[in-house]
């Protein structure tokens, strides 16, 4: 089925999210939609899927104009969507999830679960998904849950499959498997719209690449284009992807964590006897798939959540048991993983957010009176220093773009002398241009002699920033490796395979593929 979008325009008030977007998706083609966060990719797909009505423009299927009043219409027309956050009922089985919303019924109104099971088995066999129709979804790994979503779409005879940032939640291995699945679907004639901002994946799988910036199509590219070219198209100016950083000059190991254990409310250890140390002037990057205890580790260090046992020492001083306030006073700079939830008060101004953890200290306060001129002066200074694009210190932070919001958080945390700097997902949802800048600032802090801990699920970021990598899996550190370690080995370690085994497996694979060629 050929899908064509013609002149799609969608605005929210004065904000034009999609500006006359034209897009043609040929049958059996993998069409990558590349753009930064907020470029309008998701809005466009929500229009296509019937969640939004376009202000103008048309959707054509096989050259016939169609109007979608809701997702139901889109599904009926053969368009399926796999959302970034899965729309599955965790306590239902795979078959039940697949039949949900268009249940087959037997005589007498009984559910025909057998038909759904058969359909799952059939599709699973055809594409080699290896799905058990009776497995309960919440017991399945994320990558397999995603396949359930794909089967859900295929079971409704989707001819066009929209994948919205499908790799965000996957390990590198699972990503490879997904790419394989996409190729198979393509071979069977399904068209795929692949939404992403990850250049490597686009190059690996796409037939055609459309780049969207600020709500408009800014260009098409061949998969052969270099990553730098693609990044420049996305950002609208030339960017350098590599980070020049001098070799680390290691000082004393001033930050030492020993046997730290954090328990979840159900008593399970989410951080399990973790020990490591970071030297002054060193960046330790904690790699791992989301949800393997990295978040809890950083929160326990700051005292946001209690730790069950172990010790956290900074310059010989025990931090465990301190309140966040005391931990910040001890010299920790902390960039939380989700800036909108933990990092910023969105309806506070830029100036207020820049002193969120210093508001009651000199010079920003005199007694209990705020020193507004000083708070403003600080804001003006940081706005220039960090190149925060804002209308001024008085603008609400919630109105800034993601990258600029993140700059506010980093500017705040780096604006005082630090003994330890912790940043979780420092560039999540940040545009490519700002990533470059934020990375440089983090390295600069390292070069000032601060021990730095970076937690990131993006392997690119980990490899780029780290002087040493700690890989976490199910609350434990699988191993410490240098940043020169190959991606395959890192990927296996992120799935819990120890370093030696992972290296052995990767060497084996290279050997066998080498033999067949």
């Amino acid at each position, binding site marked *: 089925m050929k899908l064509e979008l013609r002149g799609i325009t969608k605005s*929210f008030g004065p*904000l034009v999210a999609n500006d006359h977007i034209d897009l043609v998706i040929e049958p059996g083609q993998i069409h990558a939609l590349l753009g930064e966060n907020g470029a309008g990719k998701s809005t466009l797909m929500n229009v296509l899927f019937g969640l939004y009505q376009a202000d103008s423009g048309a959707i054509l299927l096989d050259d016939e104009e169609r109007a979608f009043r809701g997702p139901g219409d889109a599904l009926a027309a053969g368009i399926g969507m796999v959302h970034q956050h899965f*729309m599955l009922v965790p306590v239902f089985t795979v078959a039940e999830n697949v039949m949900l919303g268009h249940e087959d019924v037997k005589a007498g109104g009984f559910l025909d679960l057998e038909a759904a099971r058969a359909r799952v088995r059939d599709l699973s066999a055809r594409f080699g998904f290896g799905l058990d129709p009776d497995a309960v979804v919440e017991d399945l790994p994320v990558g397999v849950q995603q396949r359930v979503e794909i089967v859900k779409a295929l079971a409704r005879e989707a001819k066009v499959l929209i994948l919205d940032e499908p790799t965000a939640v996957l390990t590198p291995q699972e990503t490879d498997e997904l790419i394989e699945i996409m190729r198979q679907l393509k071979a069977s004639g399904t068209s795929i719209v692949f939404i992403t901002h990850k250049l490597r994946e686009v190059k690996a799988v796409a037939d055609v690449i459309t780049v969207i910036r*600020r709500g408009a199509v800014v260009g098409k590219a061949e998969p052969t284009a270099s990553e730098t070219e693609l990044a420049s198209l996305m950002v609208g100016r030339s960017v350098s992807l590599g980070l020049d950083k001098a070799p680390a000059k290691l000082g004393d190991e001033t930050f030492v964590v020993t046997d730290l254990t954090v328990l979840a409310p159900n008593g399970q250890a989410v951080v399990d006897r973790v020990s490591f140390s970071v030297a002054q002037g060193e960046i330790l990057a904690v790699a791992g798939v989301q949800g393997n205890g990295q978040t809890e580790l950083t929160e326990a260090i700051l005292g946001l959540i209690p730790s069950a046992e172990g010790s956290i020492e900074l310059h010989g001083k025990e931090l465990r048991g301190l309140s966040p*306030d005391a931990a910040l006073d001890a010299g920790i700079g902390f960039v939380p993983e989700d800036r*909108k*939830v933990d990092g910023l*008060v969105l309806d506070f101004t830029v100036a207020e957010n820049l002193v969120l953890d210093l508001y009651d200290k000199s010079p920003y306060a005199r007694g*209990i009176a705020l020193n507004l001129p000083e708070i403003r002066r600080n804001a003006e200074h940081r706005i220039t220093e960090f190149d925060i694009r804002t209308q001024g210190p008085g603008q609400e932070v919630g109105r800034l773009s993601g990258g*600029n919001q993140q700059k506010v958080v980093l500017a705040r945390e780096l604006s005082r002398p630090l003994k330890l700097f912790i940043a979780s997902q420092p560039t999540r949802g940040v545009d490519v241009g700002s990533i470059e800048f934020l990375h440089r600032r983090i390295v600069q802090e390292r070069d000032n002699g601060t021990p730095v801990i970076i937690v990131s699920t993006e392997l690119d970021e980990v490899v780029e920033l780290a002087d040493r990598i700690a890989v976490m899996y199910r609350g434990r550190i699988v191993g410490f490796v240098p940043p020169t370690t190959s991606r395959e080995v890192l990927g296996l370690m992120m799935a819990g395979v120890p370093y030696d085994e992972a290296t052995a497996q990767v060497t084996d694979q290279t050997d066998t593929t080498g033999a067949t060629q």
Partner: protein
Amino acid sequence: MTDQQPVPPATGEPAPEAPRAAKPASDARWAATFREITTGPFGVTVLAFVLALVIGGLLIIVTDPDVTAAASYLFAKPADFFGAAWSAVSDAYSAMFRGAVFNYEAPTFARGIRSLTETMTVSTPLIIAALGVAVGFRAGLFNIGAQGQVLMGAAIGGYVGFAWSLPPVLHLLLALLGGVLAGGFWAGIAGFLKARTGAHEVIVTIMLNYVALYLVAWFLTTSAFTRPGSNQPKSPGVKDTAQLPLLLGDQFRLNAGFLVAILAAVFVWWLMSRSTWGFRFRAVGSNPQAARTAGMGVASSFVLVMVVSGALAGLAGAVQILGTEKALTGGIAGSIGFDAITVALLGRSKPLGIFFAGLLYAGLNVGGRAMEASTGTSINIVLVIQSLVVLFIAAPPLVRAIFRLPAPNPVVVKGASA
């Protein structure tokens, strides 16, 4: 309204995509609605008031006997009907204006302006207590127990006023302080329980209202609180040394309490926008998670916010007894504590807004009584108008829909279910 209109980000880039649904969406939605209701734009308030007056007018028309009579021959003489309707509404509302603001039919200016001074007198405790409720709102706490705090403030402030003997100025200040401490303590109980055990402040403060009500009723049966030799549930009169002085002489009830209300409004403005306490209160109210990550004590903030909120309500009670009532009775708080919630909503939780909202609300009450006396229109119409104003403010999308105003922010559904 302009401050709520969508402004494209400074960079000219499209707005960031909707926050990823990491936390339960209903929590976020409730928090946003709570903020919108309690601190939303001024324009909606004015339109809500206009709308309520229009509907109130329709009710006056429907219930007016002359209009009903004219309606029976509507098609024969439509002019009669519309004339009667117009005169019913304009008579009622102009009587309300005469009673609340200025009686232009009064023989002397002093008699005319008396209406306004009455409105100011009635508004005094409303404004002060509403400031307390607003401090809670700004910090994300719903102090629904202002009524109990007003009552406790009146009881303790009044006790200092009638039981102690002190030199003039000192006596008044101590009596006011007694009210402040009593109200702060009373609300502090709810704040402490929330911080320590997570008990919801709405439930606790509602229950504390009853405790305060019956506690004061019991006070009034003890010899410490009743007049010697009397078993009436009424305390002795507040001594002259502890009374708030009258501002305009004996002809008017207006007293220095009104100045206290103005000072309280200035204080709350300073506290919320110029002090580290207010910074912390607002941060905790707007995003407790971020406040905690930035090292602010969220639990201790709950206690402080409730104490400040209750202290203001207690001050309102003390001002009421020391300025207007002069003696403690079980009904001294009237419905001040509950009306204060309405006034805080009307004033959008901002001190200046509350000042005018308090005057407006008091004016409706005072004017409503005058309207009932002069035109026979039931004062219940005023209650309807007041209730409608709150209803419309609590549903800003409704007002926006009626007046076709733009929504303050585009609602971006990301990853909505199929």
